[in-house]
């Protein structure tokens, strides 16, 4: 078994006064794709937010490379990408400007020509060639989501936490993302995602069912 990257120990989460799940143990190793399944309201998003450190679990602990995430927050977040329900992009800015902003958040300054062409290349990979300089409010919901997904091509993080990455993405796009996830896992990255779609082309996919 390869190195354990992220580990949730004995997690318990509530929404309102309702217990979503308790004594949940979760482990993600390098090279793995983990799909979290469950009905609406079963706590998939809550679990992901706890794993990223956005929310705190009522009980239990999340560990990154064996350390509690509250102690290694900065180094954990530098190696982690989170894609939430919101597109995570500024509508007033262009696709290119949004990607530069995301790069800056990861500590990468894109100032030279080479960096700029890499941004355009990443946008082309998600099918947004020709939309680089268009303000994002003129893009469709699916295209806005693709701008955020371009980040996955541009900035390879060790762990990707994706909450419903396929929302509003067309069939071809879904296949491309599946290929990307598989490739990432083969390279030693890890992916946790929630989706209601069946993933057909991801070898070694592991599933976790929330009840």
């Amino acid at each position, binding site marked *: 078994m390869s190195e354990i990257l992220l580990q949730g120990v004995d997690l318990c989460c509530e929404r309102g006064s309702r217990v979503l799940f308790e004594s949940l143990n979760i482990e993600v190793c390098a090279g793995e794709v983990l799909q979290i399944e469950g009905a609406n309201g079963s706590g998939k998003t809550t679990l992901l937010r706890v794993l990223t450190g956005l929310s705190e679990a009522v009980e239990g602990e999340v560990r990154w490379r064996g350390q509690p995430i509250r102690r290694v927050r900065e180094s954990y977040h530098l190696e982690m990408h989170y894609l*939430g329900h919101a597109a995570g992009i*500024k509508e007033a800015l262009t696709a290119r400007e949004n990607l530069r902003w995301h790069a800056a958040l990861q500590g990468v*300054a894109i100032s030279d020509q080479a960096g700029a062409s890499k941004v355009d290349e990443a946008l082309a990979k998600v099918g947004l060639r020709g939309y680089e300089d268009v303000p994002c409010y003129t893009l469709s919901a699916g295209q806005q989501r693709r701008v955020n997904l371009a980040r996955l*091509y541009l900035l390879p993080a060790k762990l990707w936490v994706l909450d419903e990455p396929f929302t509003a993405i067309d069939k071809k796009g879904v296949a491309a993302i599946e290929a990307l996830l598989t490739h990432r896992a083969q390279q030693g990255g890890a992916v946790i995602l929630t989706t209601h779609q069946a993933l057909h082309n991801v070898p070694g996919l592991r599933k976790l069912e929330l009840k």
Partner: protein
Amino acid sequence: MNTPEDLLSPQSTSKEPLKVGIFKAVIGRDITAAFRHPSDLVNPLIFFVVVITLFPLAVSSDSVFLSDIAPGVLWVSALLATLLSLDMLFQSDFQDGTLEQMLLSGQPLYNAVLAKVMTHWLLSGLPLTLLSPLLAVMLFLPIEGIKTLLLTLLLGTPVLSFIGAIGSALTVGLRKTGLLLSLLVLPLYIPVLIFASGAVQAAVSGQSVAGHLAFLGAILALTMVLAPLAIVVALRISLSN
């Protein structure tokens, strides 16, 4: 390790310029975004101008009376205009999800927050300050008063932005923030209001304003250092739900 997908590697950049990076990135992004939707910028300014022009119409156009109330009117209007502009601070970032991306960036959040509040001041407090001499002349404020007014606004409006940002960060996850935000923030604005309008009144009556200005400067230094800490914690709490 370098595969086609590894286009940019975060490890290749050194640690030190990285911290300036987030500060510059936030300021650049917020200013660009704000100028694409200028109506949000202009609203507080229009409010400021309208409130002040209504006073002579509603109360009295007597020049002695107006110059008496000018320091108070100008400062209260500036304060309310700032309050009006606090919405644009974190609300839109929260809605489009960029705020949670900022929290998860692994960059020092203190710097990012400092940059956000300073941008807010650049886009609201600074224009108010630059506009104020014009309105002060309209209210027959003497020239010594106008000089002091400018100084107090320069020292005071950043404080309003920093304190307002704490309230804004605390209420960012809530549906209706208007009244709650005012209730949280207004009491904390009162010391600034007292020292600032006191300074302008002292200047008009020929007294020394050094004490007032020193207090305002001290308040500014204190809030500039401590407020971002409170804002960071408030944002983490607001986004944890």
